């Protein structure tokens, strides 16, 4: 019996290739429209994918450290806030997990936490988040509040060699921590509506978080009562030691970028995440009916704007993609997140061809009907930490 895994998709603008918006199948004038995103989300939902991530950044040039990122005119530009976009997509979808990206440097952690809890309520337990540490210089100028921060990866390429990046990861850890604390701050049955005592709330079951960190502090409980999942699913993308450590400590699910299936074992060893960390491998995919067609499209795209990518690229047929998924599954990942090179074309191909082929090959975990994203991923719904403390007292 083959190893069975989950499939996910990563949604971003016109797709992951910078020239994707110029393809005839693209809808470049609709990238910030309701209709475009509703259609993408429904396709992904209908395909049975376990979750969809939605990219975000707090500047026009995205997370790019290129100096001309804000001024160049040849790239698709214009974005929607991902947490809100996910909230918009929740009523339009039924099963898929919604995992917006959020930057941990600038937003107020309290707003982010309550936004995610609300997404969990609105979606009936399908909320997640991908936390991104650090900020670019233009993001800092947009906010105008903090001038300090990373200038990009240091020459060594290692996060641990830049104190500003290390600090950004510590801050991201605090944000992850308070998202969970605020989610726990209301016990499940805190709303009692007791007519006899006249009490709407059992105040013993709502807890101020009293968080004092290096970067910020938060005193009170969440304003949002506990949501279906208890805590939203926290995820991160990680390529190296410090992010791996962040993921192992703070995430429920980590996206990794093995160069190929044989690299998976090493990554899993470095991650050291334990049983409750799900590991998804990223693949950037361009799918056509024949390998020759796929390669022709890819050549055209690369000629227009060469892609530099962290993830393995698969250009070919649905069968080629399934072969890669099978190899990654055998190597021990829990899932594969597909990054469509073009949207909506490669998402349509994933829904119409890749998923059915993977299912036929017996490498997909079927949807077992579990109501929440956590449960679908085999992760426990944690009790509120505050409730546990009382039991132990």
């Amino acid at each position, binding site marked *: 019996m083959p190893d069975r895994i989950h499939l996910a998709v990563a949604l971003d603008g016109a797709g992951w290739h910078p020239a994707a918006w110029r393809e005839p199948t693209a809808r470049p004038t609709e990238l910030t429209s309701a209709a475009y995103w509703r259609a993408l989300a429904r396709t992904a939902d209908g395909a049975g994918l376990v979750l969809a991530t939605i990219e975000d950044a707090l500047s026009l040039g995205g997370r790019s450290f290129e100096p001309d990122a804000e001024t160049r005119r040849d790239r698709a530009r214009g974005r929607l806030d991902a947490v809100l976009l996910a*909230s918009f997509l929740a009523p339009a979808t039924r099963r898929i997990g919604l995992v917006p990206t959020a930057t941990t440097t600038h937003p107020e952690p309290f707003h982010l936490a309550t936004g995610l809890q609300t997404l969990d309520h609105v979606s009936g337990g399908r909320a997640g988040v991908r936390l991104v540490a650090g900020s670019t210089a233009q993001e800092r100028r947009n906010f105008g509040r903090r001038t300090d921060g990373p200038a990009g990866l240091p020459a060594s390429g290692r996060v641990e060699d830049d104190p500003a990046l290390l600090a950004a990861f510590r801050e991201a850890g605090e944000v992850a921590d308070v998202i969970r604390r605020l989610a726990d701050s209301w016990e499940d049955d805190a709303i009692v509506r007791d007519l006899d005592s*006249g009490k709407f709330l059992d105040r013993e079951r709502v807890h101020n978080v009293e968080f004092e960190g290096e970067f910020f502090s938060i005193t009170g409980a969440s304003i949002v009562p506990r949501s279906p999942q208890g805590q939203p699913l926290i995820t991160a993308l990680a390529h190296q030691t410090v992010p791996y450590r962040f993921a192992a400590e703070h995430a429920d699910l980590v996206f990794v970028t093995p160069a190929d299936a044989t690299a998976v074992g090493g990554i899993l060893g470095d991650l050291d995440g334990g049983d409750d960390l799900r590991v998804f491998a990223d693949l950037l995919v361009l799918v056509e009916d024949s390998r020759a067609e796929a390669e022709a499209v890819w050549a055209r795209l690369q000629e227009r704007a060469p892609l530099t990518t962290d993830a393995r690229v698969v250009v070919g047929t649905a069968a080629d993609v399934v072969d890669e998924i099978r190899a990654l599954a055998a190597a021990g990942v829990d899932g594969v997140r597909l990054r469509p090179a073009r949207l909506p074309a490669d998402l349509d191909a994933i829904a119409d061809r890749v998923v059915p082929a993977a299912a036929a090959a017996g490498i997909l975990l079927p949807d077992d009907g579990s109501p929440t994203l956590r449960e679908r991923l085999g992760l426990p719904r944690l009790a509120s930490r505050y409730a546990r403390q009382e039991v132990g007292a």
Partner: protein
Amino acid sequence: MTRRQIHLAAHFPGVNNTTVWTDPSAGSQIDFSSFEHFARTAERGFFDYLFLAEGLRLREHRRQLHDLDVAGRPNTLAILTALAAVTEHIGLVGTLNTTFNEPYELARQLGTLDLLSNGRAGWNAVTSSDAFHGANFRRGGYLDHADRYVRAAEFAALSKALWSSWRDDAIEADAETGEFLRADAIERVRHESRLFDVDAVFDVPRSPQGRPAIVQAGDSPDGRDFATQHADVIFSLHTAFDDAQQFYRDVKGRLAANGRDEDSLKILPAATFVLGDTADEARERSREIALAQVRPQTAITYLEQIWNRDLSGYDADGPLPDVEPDTGVETAQGFAGRHAAIRARVGQLREQAVAENLSIRELVIRLTATHTFVGTPEHVASEIDRYVQERATDGFTVVGHVTPHGLDEFTDKVVPLLQERGSYRRSYDEGATLHDLLGLPPVPANAGAR
């Protein structure tokens, strides 16, 4: 001559003693189905917009969580954006604080809501400076009280600059030439002051509305100045007819100095209502609702927030406490300001109670649970119409007392009568933005960046 048109907003009943959770029909304050029902009802009644308050911290009373009223609510922006997916026409307006947000982020969130709703977003810009709410935010309680409206005005100006920084036709998306953005598609926004140092390139395209509508709710002189400068709607508390007319004249009179005309700012006071088949029946229901809104414990708690003392030994049906208020420390909830103000307030309440022979509970009912319009649907409709025709308001922000069905009766019974009078719309125009629904002048397009 055509009649002046009535504008209505629908306030989702939330966190206060006037939301009656003990009513047998009261549903969830948090499930999306409650919000969806409320929004669909308001849309069925052709309201201009639905309105959501904001929660930044759970209310506390004497350093403990306040447990008598509805507590807990969703994040305002997230729920409004979800509602954009299940509605087509109605405006979506939320309270969002200028102290505990940053302009770039809030402008892009509101821009997101505006795009996803096809131009139906609105922002009730409020200010805060208190350390109680600040304790949940990076900024903390840093903002000097006097700077609240300075920051709010700069925040609004900066947000407007960001929303207008994209040309309407910024996106060219020419696959042949490879030019996604036109030349000068996006203007850089610079704002340097004592409170902000922003050098921004906005990343959200312009919406069909140009920018979200801006609502203002404060009543201080600073608040009125902010409103006449920046707001499209005032959510006032002036509901007594003469007082409303006076407020209306004052605020509208200030507009010309800002280069604005009378129609560019709508005044929509909060209004509660109780309907009955007869006037007597409505009065009786009003009484029952008031007693549910102000239970004995609620009345005592209300006074404790002013006195800043334990008053649990007092009988809610008896006279006001004879002890003096504790003015040693400010209470967290903003009821207390300076010490003298507390004592003055207590004196005022005592005078009112004696003059009108009121118990604690009756006094608190007068203060928090007096219903604006009580009567038959015909009476309520004719009163609403009178206020608008005689320029006391441009309409009302209707506040029900039960979630989520509190608007059903108004929509079914009062709205058709307003329509019959020719003062209220019978349908939405296709593609109307919130600015259009409110009858506001269009937002000028950004013809091109410098």
